[in-house]
Structure formats: C-alpha cells, structure tokens
C-alpha cells in the first residue's frame, strides 16, 4: 500500500471544494453543498466549504445559505484566476493541517485538473466523475457511483484506509438546494503565502461565457453530424417546445455549437422529460447523457441507427423536411 498522509483514525468532517469564477460559485459547488448537507447530517458531522480566490467573501455567504457550516476563505490577489499550482498548494496545506475525512469536488474541467493533482500530493484515492454518493452501510465509507466503458457499466468505488476520501461529482446530478439567507455559519480567513514565482502558469487569454445549463432543461432538442452544420430548425423547435438545444460531441467538435451544450460521457448528463434526438447515431458515449429521459424521440435517416434501440418514438427519415413540417404544424395555433 502506498502510505497515506493520514488515516481514518485522525480524520473528521466533510469538505466541499467551492469552485468560483469571478466570485460566483459554480452550480455544481452549490449542488454539492446540498448533497453534502444531507451526508453531513447522516454522519452528525460539520460541512466545511473550501474557497480559494480573490474577493470571494460574498461567495462564502452564499455557501452558508446553501448549507455550509463553515467556510475557509483563502483570499489573495494571485488567486484571481485558477491555476493548478496555487490551488493544489493551498488545498494540500489546509487538508494536511485539519485532516478532513471526505473531500468532494465538482467534475468541471478545472475541478478535475485540481482533484487529480491534489489526490496524488495527498497520496490518497480519488473516485472520478460520480453520478451518486452515499455512505456505505456498516463501514461508513464513502461510496461513489461511477460509469465506465462509455457509460455501459456502472461501478461503486471506495477508499478504505487513505484520507481524505476524495471524489469528483458530475454537474447536474444533485438538485440545487434552496438558499436560506438566515442560515448561520462561520467564515474563516486563512493566511495565504504565495509569491508570483510560485505560480508556474501564466494565463495569456481567457474566453468564457455564462453558457446555458442543459442539465436542468425539461425538453432537449439535440443535433449531431446529421444536421450538417445547421442548427436553425432545432433552435426554433426548442423555442416552440420551451426547451434547450443540445448536441453530440461531433457537432461540438466541428464547431457548429458551443461545448456547454454537449451531451454524453465527456459532456453533460441530462435528465429531461423529453429528448428529441436529430441526426445522431446513438453511440453509448452519447446515450449515457439522455438515458434517464422520460421520453426519447429519434429522427434519423438510417434504419440501422442504434439510436432507434433507445427511442420511444422513431422517425426514420431525412430530418430536414420532417422538422420543417413539425415546426410549421406547431407554429399554427401558437401566436
């Protein structure tokens, strides 16, 4: 066994990493506070938020309103933008000092960048991209539910002897907890010693948009390679149905639509009531992102497309004339 930095005998408390961007908490951080609140209550332990950044005091208060008992704020001008080195350094120091039993992080690109590095620095186990979290009966160990093999196989992973037991969690799995502005909690400013030389990475350019959150859409109209670069009819249909446009990875890779709309293993897992899937073949890496939809409609010109195996309503045809007729019909009778 690779020797742990510390073990279960000395560990206590549940921590959630509070990822923020310009002082605004990521949705998945709030979701983790919600689930973390329940998990902490089951264990009778406190829920602590770990919040590195610059000018993030408001975010600390938001975290308390969403379920944190205690927030550790590491504030420093050099923490204005995420960097692997600074974040790993700060998190590792606080964790080795205070020895939490469990640390949960959102599986965003930067959350995964940090978690993978931090786990090795702490010589502990890291469960990846969980779609469920629970305490194991009897042992009280964290059980992370994960998917593998393109989404076809599920597994539960645990970490018996090393602490903290760490897990990254997919955005959109747990509901957003309703905020309670009167909730009591403490905010603690921790000291941060960082020199510019300690930061290896320099950020040269950053482009970021507050994209859509397709994980909460009730209706999704998804397009793939078959839409041939033209998402106009899908956008119009989504508008008529009060939903959002989603996409296969291929459509995103080709630059037809933003990455914030990618569904699947390396995109978002969605749970719409209705998913309308157009010009997507239905690879498992895609379908894992819609498999919990109540209703799936597939439009595809290939009778052998695997997506038809996973659909309630199937339309085997060229998607363009079908969508044209569908949209025209829906527009009639709506103002």
């Amino acid at each position: 066994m690779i020797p742990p930095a510390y073990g279960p005998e000395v560990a206590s408390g549940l921590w959630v990493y509070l990822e923020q961007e310009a002082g605004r908490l990521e949705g998945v951080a709030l979701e983790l506070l919600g689930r973390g609140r329940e998990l902490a209550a089951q264990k009778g332990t406190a829920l602590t938020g770990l919040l590195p950044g610059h000018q993030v005091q408001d975010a600390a208060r938001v975290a308390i309103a969403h379920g944190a008992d205690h927030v550790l704020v590491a504030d420093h001008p050099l923490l204005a933008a995420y960097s692997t080195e600074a974040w790993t350094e700060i998190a590792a120091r606080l964790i080795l000092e205070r020895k939490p039993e469990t640390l949960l992080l959102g599986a965003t690109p930067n959350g995964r960048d940090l978690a993978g590095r931090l786990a090795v620095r702490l010589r502990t186990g890291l469960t990846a991209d969980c779609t469920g979290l629970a305490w194991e009966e009897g042992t009280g160990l964290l059980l992370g539910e994960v998917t593998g093999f393109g989404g076809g196989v599920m597994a539960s992973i645990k970490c018996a002897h090393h602490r903290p037991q760490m897990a990254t969690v997919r955005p959109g799995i747990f509901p957003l907890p309703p905020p309670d502005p009167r909730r009591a909690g403490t905010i603690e400013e921790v000291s941060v010693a960082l020199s510019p030389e300690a930061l290896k990475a320099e950020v040269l350019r950053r482009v970021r948009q507050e994209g859509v959150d397709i994980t909460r859409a009730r209706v999704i109209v998804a397009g793939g390679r078959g839409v041939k670069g033209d998402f106009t009819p899908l956008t119009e249909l989504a508008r008529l149905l009060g939903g959002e446009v989603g996409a296969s990875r291929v459509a995103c890779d080709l630059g037809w639509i933003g990455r914030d709309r990618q569904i699947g293993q390396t995109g978002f897992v969605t749970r719409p009531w209705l998913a309308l899937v157009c010009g997507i073949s239905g690879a498992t890496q895609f379908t894992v992102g819609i498999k919990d939809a109540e209703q799936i409609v597939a439009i595809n010109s290939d009778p052998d497309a695997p997506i038809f195996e996973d659909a309630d309503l199937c339309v085997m045809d060229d998607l363009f004339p079908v969508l044209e007729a569908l949209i025209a019909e829906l527009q009639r009778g709506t103002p």
Partner: protein
Amino acid sequence: MRPLDTVVCVKVVPKPEEVSVDPETRTLDRARARSELNPPDMNAIEMALALRERHGGTVSLLSMGPPFAAPYLQVGLAMGADSAYLLSDRAFAGADTLATSYTLAKGIEKIGGWDLILCGEESSDGATGQVPQGIAEWLGASQITFATSLAVRADGRLVGEREIRGGHEVIAVPLPAVVSVKLGVNEPRFMDMERRHSAAPVTVWGAGDLGVDPAWLGFEGSPTAVGAVWQARTRERRREFLEGTPQEKGRLLAERLRALLAL
C-alpha cells in the same frame, strides 16, 4: 530552440460497446471485446509527431498493460514514433489511478531525458481522466489538462489552449510538462507499412526493471477498490415507428408532442 523529447502515454482499451457485466458473477466480461488504442491517445501521438516535425527531438511511446498490448504500440511506431516501452508485470494489475500514475512516472524516469509527456484526456474504459495530473505530480512537472493545441514559445515555455467550463483559456507553463489532449483535436496520420517492418522492437519492462517498491503497485498499492459493478440500466423503450411521407411524419410528431407536453 533545442529539440523536444516527448513521451506519449497510450493505453490499450477494450472497445467499450463490447464489454458487459456477467449477471451471475457480477464481474466484467471483456473476453469477447476487441482492443484498440484509446482514441484520444491517437490524437496525442499525432500531436507529438507534429511537434517533432517543428522542433526536432524524439517521440517515445509508453504503455502499462498486458503483453497483448505490444502490437498496438507497433501501430504507433508505424505512425512514426522512435521507440516504444511496455510496462508489463502481474504486479501492475488492478492499479487505480494513484498506482497507475506512479508506475508510469517510474517508467518515464527510466526512459529519461524527457521534456514533454502527452496523454489522452481520458480512457474509454475507466474514464477517470486522472492519470495525467497524477504523472505530473509524481514528476514535479507543470500540467495542462484538456488541451486542444500546443506550441513551444521562443523562450522555451509551452503554450497550450485548454478547455474550461463555458470557454477556453491559453496558458504558458515551463517545461518539463505533462499535457492531456482532447479527443479529435487533429487527424491522426496513417501508419506507414514500410516502417511497420523496420521499426524498433517494443522494449518490455517488469516491476524489477523499474526499481520500485512492489507494495506501491497494482491492486495492493491502490487506495481505492471497486465495491461492485453492474450493467447500466437501460430503460425499455417503446420503439414505435411513425409512418408516412416526411411531411406526414412531421405533422404526426407535432400531434404526439402536443399531447406529451400538453401544449
């Protein structure tokens, strides 16, 4: 600028759609699955070869896996890599990402003299996307994860564009560095059949060759363990086909959607 020596970490994986869970033994059944090089690792190989064309230097391939992985490394050699190393030993089996990244880091140290390590963004089997960051930490190197493009700047720093939530950023880090490459960022070149025959053989190293503590390897070295595996439940779907001309199908679908959504 001096030449760039790159190691590309590649994993041989079963084709995901051919793996299932045996309902009786509740274990993974990979016996019928064919293998392939993990798709984003192909993009990593292509990126390394393109960098070598610009900067000179060497491209080595490194994999940890069973002996049957060797022919897949030969594919990479035939694409143009200079050398290939396979870490293969029963002691490596069952490794989680901590033990895997440790073993690969030890292999990289033994290859020696490297500036850049390229990996894929995630594997198609375990799909954790954790190994690259782990290797970077064991080696004390910089890291750029989820990279879509890479270049070496005149001052010798590595500049990479990477994905972040809702967008992307361009960062510069000092070498040596570990980079994980996004799937599909380039078009991997075909193998050159001539090369396939003339290429250097794959060097195979076991635990004894790496000078590692056996207790840090494989299942025994791993802090995490798989508690249970099961087949992802797929709901039974109705699979009802609508008939008619495209226009009729569109109108029929409108009716159904109106009813479903109570529009």
